[in-house]
Structure formats: C-alpha cells, structure tokens
C-alpha cells in the first residue's frame, strides 16, 4: 500500500460515506445542544470528527456540503456560511495531521485556533450580507454597544463573531477529540490513509 498524502483527491469509498454520517452528527450535536439548552451551537462536531479521521479535504467537503444541505432542509441563510464550515474542516484536518490532537491540551489550542479562524472568515461575510451581525443575541448586543460607541464596524463585527465562535469551537473540538480518542481502532484505521493495512 503506497503512502498517501493528506491532500490526496483519491477518496476511498469509506471516506466518502463518512461525509453524510458526519453531517448527521453535526445535526445531532445541534439537536442535543438545543434539547439540553446548552448555550452553544455545537453544530460542527461531525465536520471536526471527519477531518480528524479522514483529513482536510474530506473535512472541508463535509463542511461545505453540510451547509448546502442545511440550506435545503433547515434555513437558506446557512448557504452563506458554507465557506466558514469548509475552512473549519480544512484547518482541523491540517492541524490534526500535524499532531495537534495528541493530547487534550493540544486539542484546546486547536479549538482556540479554529474559533479565531472561523470568526475571521465569518466577519467579512457578516458585514457583506447583513451589516455585521451574527444573529446571536449576546454577540449582537456586544456589536450594538461597540457600534454605539463609534468603534469601526469591522472591529465590532469581529468581536461579535469572536465571542460566539471561540467558546463554541473550543467545545466542539474538545467533544470531537474525546469521541475520536474513544473510537475503536478498527474504525479509525478504515480512514487512515497512512496506515499499512489495505483499505476496503
């Protein structure tokens, strides 16, 4: 079995069928977070998990397809954030490959980085499409306060995204990390392009 790079565009069937499952996990994470009235979205656990399992390309595809399907079945507004979701998958995939999921401390750093990057990618989208808000009450309250104090719109919008995204993505990555570490080896090996064992 030849070693494959993390950027390989040759998807195994197992990696492709992981995408719908991961999107389902995203949906369930959101559902449980709402059921338990948690103050976070937790709607990208599947994206994060698929990136950890199958690399950045599959992770990014999961993120993008997730928001397209959401657009079709839940709320058209989520089409706009397909880019953000794709970038989340990409970043987690690259950093996981480089060893940032070796321990819980490193996973925390990964979550922080993903949160900041997600906020950075979302900010221009929020400004372009709706003048800077996120639609999250706490974030938007901060946005309104900063705007009222005549701070620049992009700064207020970035702060708005940051307070919403960073805690959410840290929690998401931690949950994804805990699940990933507890998956049986025979499952994780199925997606590992570096493994010596012949894939399905």
């Amino acid at each position, binding site marked *: 079995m030849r070693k494959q790079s993390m950027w390989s565009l040759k998807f195994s069937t197992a990696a492709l069928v992981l995408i719908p499952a991961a999107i389902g996990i995203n949906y369930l994470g959101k559902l*449980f977070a709402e059921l338990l009235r948690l103050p976070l979205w937790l709607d990208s656990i599947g994206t994060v998990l698929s990136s950890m399992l199958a690399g950045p390309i599959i992770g990014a595809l999961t993120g993008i397809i997730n928001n397209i399907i959401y657009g079709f079945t839940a709320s058209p*507004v989520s089409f706009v954030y397909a880019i953000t979701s794709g970038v989340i998958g990409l970043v987690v995939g690259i950093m996981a490959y480089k060893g940032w999921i070796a321990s819980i401390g490193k996973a925390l750093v990964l979550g922080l980085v993903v949160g900041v990057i997600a906020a950075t990618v979302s900010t221009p989208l929020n400004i372009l499409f709706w003048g800077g808000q996120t639609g999250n009450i706490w974030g938007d309250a901060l946005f309104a306060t900063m705007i009222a104090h005549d701070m620049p719109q992009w700064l207020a919008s970035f702060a708005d995204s940051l307070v919403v995204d960073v805690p959410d993505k840290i929690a998401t990555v931690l949950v994804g990390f805990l699940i990933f570490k507890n998956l049986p080896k025979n499952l994780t090996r199925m997606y590992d392009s570096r493994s010596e064992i012949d894939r*399905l």
Partner: protein
Amino acid sequence: MKNGTFYLEKDSIVHDVDPLSKLLFVFVSVGVTYIVSDHSFVLGVFAFTLLLLLLGKVLRYILPIIGLSIVLIFSIIIVQGFFHPDRSTLWFTIVSVPIYKEGFSYALLLTLRVLNMVCAFGVLILTTKPDDLVQSLIRKGMSPKIGYVLLSVLQILPQMLAVTGKITDAQRSRGMETEGGLITRVKSFIPLLTPVVLNSINDTRDRSIALEIRGFNSTSERTFLHETNHFKYGFVIKILLAASLAAVITWRIFL
C-alpha cells in the same frame, strides 16, 4: 428536517423550469440586490421573486422558511436601526425613543436583501426535487460520487434521528439526568452523542462495502435511470438571467 426537504409536488410553470436555471436565478437574484444599493430596485427584485413563488403555487409555504431567519432580521432592524454610526437625521420619536432616518433606511435595505435571499432560495428549494437538481448537476459534469453523498444525507438523517430517540430513551432509563443545572446538562451531552456517533460511523463500514459490491468505484460511464430530461425553457432563462446580470453590473458602473 424529518421528512427530508421543503420540496412540494405541484403542477406549475416554475416546477417545469430546469433546476440549473433556478440555481442560476438564485445567484443572480441575490447578487444583483447586493450590487445595487437602491431601495426601490431591491424591492422590485424581491417583488419579482415573490411573483415566482406565486406562479409556483408555493407562496404561503415560504412563511415558515422566513420564520427561521426571523432572529437575524430582528437583529438587523434593532442593531442597525438604533445603533447605526451615521445617525443624524431625526425621523420621529416613539415615547421619547429617537428614530433616526439613516439607520432605519439601511436596516430596511438589509432586511429586503435578506428577505429576497431567503425567498430566492425558496423558489429553488420549494419547487425543485433534490434528486432532479443533483441529476442535472451530474449531467453537467459533477462527480456522481459527490451526487451520491449529497442525496444520501437526506436518507441518513431520518435514520439517525430514529436511532437518537432510542438512545435518549435508553440513557434516561438508566438514570441519566437531562434536566437541572448547566453542569448536569453538559455532563449528559457526551453519553447522548457518543452511542449515535459510534453507531453511524460503524454503519459507514457496511455501507461502503455494500456500495463497492455494486460498482460504486466503477470507472465506466454512468447511465441514468431517467434518460430524458422533462424540463423546459432552460436555455432562454439562462440567457435572460445572464443578460440582466450584465445589465445590472453596467448600470452600477456607469451610473
């Protein structure tokens, strides 16, 4: 999401239009409202989108979809309306709360754009069967594997939701607390999610074996179950859309 999508089976002229034209319409319709910052123009585009929903006999089904974006719309009106930085012209006062013209004018423009975006996507998702859209994309050269992935999400979600119900019941019967303080609720998140995740990742193994047995990785050319395309007006609509986009861009540059 339980029953899949928003698609409604109806007999209308909008249903007869080919899915790719409708997809193009969404992008043009949303695009032009962001290219031109003029209230009456955006209102006009929005009115046209509503007309398409009416022609497609799906106008009243757009309301629940708009309802899903209502938080965002409220937030736009409140935040931009009251806190917009260029607030100078006093419009009128409601119970000693000053209402500024600039902020609300901007909020109105943004709200119209968001409403148009939601309704334009509504035209596509209410009148287009996802299968038809994916098949059209595959005919245009999209990988059939990606097509499979797109459509299988719609099948897998209801299955996963059914499993979720069972797992929630099972965990509750073992005494797991899902009510109470924040810590209690956080603690029950992992035991609820993990079994479903394990279950669904385990299923992917069976699914990939089943798919490979049926020639999923075959490199020979794919055939379609429905060879003929029953949609109309595709070419004309695409030309019209491209022309109007070009016209709007010209207008924006030269006026």
